[in-house]
């Protein structure tokens, strides 16, 4: 621990070309703030405004690149992003500081919520309110899926892979890993590396 947090004089440099000068403490605090304020899902938007906008630790291109890795790997976007950005800034220790920071507020909150729910969850008023919450959450998740689909799908036949996945899990009651591996491999093979044939009509 020879790196003092003293060199905190971060200049608002316009581009983050050189490795930004961020201490472990700064990384932890920035991710803690993001972890505590990102109400309502969209952590990615908060990450972007905090890391690209405010701190300039990564530039936009790098952020998008990291996001695409985060989405492809297992793990939540928020924690994967924390690992990638933390690692870029300060190696393994930076990654740990970032992921702990982004998880801590929500974890403490859900710890308390869980205890309260355990104690009072069967009161009629609570049950009634949570029935409404759960119904709204289903709508929210569906909206997320649609928005994500609009953004990240490139072809109409992607819908076939989506359908195969849903049918596998919900209709055929196959386990998630089985569906993930089977449909995943088919889809990856479908997108096998072609030689620069963009927009080629597919079979």
């Amino acid at each position: 621990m020879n790196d003092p947090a003293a060199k905190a004089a971060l200049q608002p440099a316009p581009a983050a070309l050189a490795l930004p000068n961020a201490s472990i403490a700064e990384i932890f605090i920035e991710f803690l703030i993001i972890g505590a304020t990102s109400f309502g899902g969209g952590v990615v938007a908060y990450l972007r405004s905090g890391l690209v906008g405010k701190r300039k630790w990564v530039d936009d291109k790098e952020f998008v690149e990291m996001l695409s890795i985060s989405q492809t790997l297992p793990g939540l976007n928020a924690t994967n992003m924390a690992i990638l950005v933390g690692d870029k800034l300060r190696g393994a220790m930076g990654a740990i500081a970032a992921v702990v920071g982004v998880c801590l507020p929500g974890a403490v909150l859900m710890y308390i919520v869980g205890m309260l729910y355990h104690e009072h969850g069967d009161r009629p008023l609570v049950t009634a309110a949570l029935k409404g919450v759960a119904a709204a959450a289903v709508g929210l998740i569906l909206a997320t899926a649609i928005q994500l689909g609009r953004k990240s799908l490139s072809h109409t036949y992607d819908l076939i892979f989506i359908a195969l996945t849903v049918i596998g899990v919900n209709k055929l009651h196959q386990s998630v890993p089985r569906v993930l591996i089977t449909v995943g491999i088919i889809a990856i093979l479908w997108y096998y590396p072609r030689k620069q044939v963009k927009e080629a009509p597919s079979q």
Partner: protein
Amino acid sequence: MNQLPALIRVFAYLSLLTVGGGMAAFPELKVLTVEVHHWLTFTQLIHLYSMGQMAPGPNMMMIVSIGEWVAGPMGAVVVLLAFFGPTALLAFLIGRLWKKLEHWPWRDSIQKGLAPVSIGLLLAGCFTMAKGAISGLETATISVATLMILLEYKINPALLVAAGAIIGAFTFVPK
């Protein structure tokens, strides 16, 4: 009975299924925590998961509640480590490798192929949850209204989920 090993096994396994987001693991989360280990009921799982949607940070923090129920504070810590440890390590290692793979042609294939599958898993998780959360015209209306508002307007989803609580409190309290 010491449940910590079971918690570790279940949540480390679930973490590897979260391709594209936490919801992808929901069907297995239900099977393992409700049907196999009986740590909580399906309704309780749905309640916790839905409340977790309002919490800040990564949206799977409701697993902390499950850990706490099953094995107290230790359970909560163990679940967190089991759920975030393996994928964090994977992101760390692959993240460093990924840059070097920039010219590996399959990299793009993997990304393109997994994109629709991860959305399919998100939907599958959503439908699993809907089976427990939607039980009549009222709940269906709340879901559809939330969906439409979110697609149409830029509004913080946490507010809509909170609104669901208020509507629920007025609608579903037994007379």
